[in-house]
């Protein structure tokens, strides 16, 4: 635990227990999404599915990166991860991104993916609003994750025909925003 860092955050009026719980819930959402996306990716097959597979894989890897980046901050602030993985799964900030009943329905797959990303966008926006100008380190981390989650949402939204994402898929390494927290 980073004692003084924790005190500085507390002095700003942030409810630290609440913030830590939000971070743990979002870490759970990231890791469980990584797991569920593994199943979705494996089922993205055929002419339509293959076109989405690579982008789903990028989102999957970046969600795992988000988990990895969140964990140190949780412990710095005096929090911890539950010992029981089942408990961790159930306290996720987002519902499970389960495989749709008909895995051949690519549109249904995309809806699961975009809903998961939208949940994440809402969650990190909330944490950013909570920590802006107060807890600079958590804000920096949440903003970085939010940047990537917004891009994920826009990719899947584009595939659903909701409009252009405005950018192209990743070239080179994953996590252009969160990468600095992983080094």
């Amino acid at each position, binding site marked *: 635990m980073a004692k003084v860092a924790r005190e500085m955050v507390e002095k700003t009026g942030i409810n630290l227990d609440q913030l830590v719980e*939000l971070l743990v819930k979002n870490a759970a959402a990231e890791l469980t999404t990584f797991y569920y996306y593994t199943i979705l990716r494996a089922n993205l097959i055929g002419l339509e599915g293959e076109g989405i597979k690579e982008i789903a894989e990028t989102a999957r890897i970046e969600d795992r990166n988000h988990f990895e980046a969140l964990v140190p901050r949780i412990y710095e602030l005096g929090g911890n991860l539950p010992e029981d993985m089942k408990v961790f799964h159930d306290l996720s900030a987002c519902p499970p991104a389960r495989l749709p009943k008909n895995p051949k329905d690519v549109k249904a797959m995309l809806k699961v993916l975009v809903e998961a990303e939208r949940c994440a966008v*809402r*969650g990190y926006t909330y944490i950013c609003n909570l920590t802006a100008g107060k807890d600079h380190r958590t804000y920096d981390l949440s903003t970085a994750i939010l940047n990537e989650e917004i891009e994920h949402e826009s990719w899947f939204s584009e595939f659903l025909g909701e409009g252009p994402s405005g950018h192209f898929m990743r070239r080179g390494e994953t996590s252009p925003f969160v990468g600095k927290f992983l080094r």
Partner: protein
Amino acid sequence: MRRFDKKELTRCNGEADAPAFIAYKGNVYDVSRNFLWQGGRHFRIHTAGSDLTHCLDLAPHGEEMLERCPVIGEFPEE
């Protein structure tokens, strides 16, 4: 449509075997089956069995999330 008073709503807090109901703008929503309302708690911030009409402004989502839960009654606003 069943009408709830404050006492009835408070009992539906999602604890033990109680269902988890919340009130919003005069309607009562059943959130018992919602993943994010397990045990009658929504994150650390909200508890079932209460009127959350004035809480949504601060939430990272709008009314559209409530539309996913069934309306099971009315809660006349005071």
